[in-house]
Structures are given as C-alpha cells and as structure tokens.
C-alpha cells in the first residue's frame, strides 16, 4: 500500500504537481539523511549528500520506471552518493585539498544541540568508523533499515553471499568493540 501511495505521488509529480514532490521529501528525508550520516560519520557530508539525493530525485523522477519500489530506487541513489562522498573525501585528501578536522567540525555543527544526543551520535560514529565501507553499509541496512539480504542486494547490486559474509564480519567486530572498549 505504501508503495502504491509512492507511485501515486510520482505520477502526480510527473504530471506537474509540485506538492507531490514535497510529500515524497517529507516521507524520505529522514531516511536519506540518517543513512548517509551513519555512512559518513559527520553532519556536513550527510547534509551535502541528502541535498544531492533530493536534487537527483527531483530531476530524475520523470525517468522512474515503476519496476522497483521507490524506496529501493531512493536508497540506491543514497547508497551510491554516500560512497561517492567517501571517495571524494579520500580524493581530496590525496590531492591536499582537504585538511578538515571532522571531530572539531562536528562539535560546531550537528543535527542536534542536545548534549546527550551528540554523545550518542559520537559513540555510534566511533564504532561505525572502525568498519570498512562494505561492512558498514550492510550493517546499517540490516540494523537500522531492517532490510533482508535480498532487499539489500537489490539496492547495492551485491550478491547475497557477499553481503552475508560482510555482515557477519561487521557484527563480530561491533560486538568485539562494544565488549572490549570504552566507546
């Protein structure tokens, strides 16, 4: 039913109803932000990716094929853009363009002013940062989006076997970190 509603909004938007786009943004903005935030471990990059995804959504929605769910399509864009942002950051570091200290930056600008929330986010960022990108991605989809391996495979294009292997390693690592370290 939720899928039908999404398709209805997409059709309305394609036929010129701008408000349908607003409704889609309202529905998906938090999911997009939080996935990229957990992938990128800082607000600034997550904000950039979220805006990029929404812009892509606006521009490409007319090409949506209705073959997969809108959720899968949006998460495909979000996952790709998040990984692109990680690579972009590595690229900038390689060419000396970026000497940003994200730990300092996070203190200045974040999604929440509440100290407890900031501390929780900082702890989570610290744990997730320890995971390689492939493991982090599958860990987030499994635990925060509660997706099946098949659904994650549809989003990431990776084999279910590979996803299972990465998730096992991620889980083992996260439990080990929680057990052995004061995070």
């Amino acid at each position, binding site marked *: 039913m939720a899928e039908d509603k999404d398709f209805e909004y997409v059709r309305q938007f394609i036929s010129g109803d701008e408000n349908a786009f*607003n409704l889609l943004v309202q529905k998906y903005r938090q999911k997009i932000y939080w996935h990229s935030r957990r992938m990128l471990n800082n607000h600034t990059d997550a904000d950039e990716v979220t805006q990029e995804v929404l812009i892509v959504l606006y521009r490409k929605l007319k090409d949506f094929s209705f073959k997969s769910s809108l959720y899968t399509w949006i998460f495909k864009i979000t996952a790709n853009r998040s990984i692109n942002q990680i690579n972009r950051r590595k690229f900038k570091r390689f060419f000396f363009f970026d000497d940003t200290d994200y730990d300092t930056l996070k203190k200045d600008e974040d999604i929440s002013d509440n100290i407890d929330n900031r501390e929780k986010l900082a702890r989570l960022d610290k744990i997730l940062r320890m995971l390689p990108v492939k*493991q982090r991605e599958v860990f987030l989809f499994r635990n925060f989006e509660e997706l099946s391996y098949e659904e994650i495979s549809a989003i990431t294009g990776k084999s279910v076997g590979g996803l299972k292997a990465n998730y096992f390693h991620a889980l083992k690592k996260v439990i080990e970190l929680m057990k052995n370290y004061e995070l």
Partner: protein
Amino acid sequence: MNYKDKIPLYLADNMSADKKADFEAELLRSSELKSQLDEQTELLKEVISLGQIETGEPYFNNLLPGVRLRLEAGRRHSFYPGLALGLPILAVIVILIIRSFSGSGEDKPVISRIVSGLNDESKTEILVVLFDADAASVQQTEFIGSTDDDEILAGRVTDELKRAAGIKEGYLDTDELINNLSKEETETICNNLITKKIF
C-alpha cells in the same frame, strides 16, 4: 567448532537450517551459551539504540526550501558544458605535475605495490601458506563470500594476518587492511612474508 564462535553467525541469520537447529538445541542445553548469546544481543541492541535518536526537526524543515533554492539556482545559471569536462582535467594535470615535483607518494608501501600486482589466486596462496588454511575455504570466504564455518575461518585468517603484522585495531577486510598499512606495519608483514619464503 566452538558454539560460542557461532553466535555472530546466529545473530546474522547466516546459518543453514541444520546448523541453526543444532545451535538452538545447544542453547537449550547450555545456560552459558544462552547467557553469552543474551549478552551479545544486548550489546547489539545498545549500538542500534545509539542511532535511534529523534531530533533534527529544524534541520529537516529547512531542507526542502534549501533544495528548492539550489534547484532554482541551477535553472538560472546556464552551464557551459565544455567547462565541466575541461576544468577538472586541467586541475588534475596541474596537481599531478605539482605532486611529481613535491616528491610525495614516493614512500608507497612495498606491500601495497606487491599486493596490487597480485590476483586473488595469489593472495589466496599467501594466506594458505601463512596459516596452513584450507585453500578452498580461504578462496571462498576471502574473495567470493560464503556462509557459516567458512566465515569463521576467514575471520580467523584475518585475525592471524593482523596479529602477524602487529596491526592496530580497525581493519578487518583483507584488501582494506593491505591498503591501509603504515610503513612500519608494511615492513613487519614483509619480513614475515620473506621469512616464510613466500616471495
């Protein structure tokens, strides 16, 4: 295989039906295993709870107007397509020239240079020789990905690799591990490889 080592596999819902039934039967028999499973489940729940914060309404409310402004700005400024391609290429060329004069990048770790030239088969061979592991299992788990006991073996191999290199926490994926080695770590692992006559 130790049942305790299988807890992450169970939590990952990554066991065949037979193995899952066997594990669950052991859970009924062993209160120690049950308490370890409960402990690990709680730790996982704690991590998930860290990410479940309800916040950011002002940010989310301002998101759409910001996106609309960017879309509007994109429409106003006509874009010169040649610049989109030409400028980045020019920038990359200039930076590469500067870097070639600055001398940075000369210290690219030896192991990265060696390993980047290896195919998966050769990497497998290294792991097999280093740790007397079963070749098929290593190949399956390290480079293709599989389930159950193979993952445990892959984890063990990776842990051994880390131990052999004296590597700091944080790298689990073998490729990532190799690409992130520092110069000292590289030297240590190279010495190990040379001692074991792999190269």
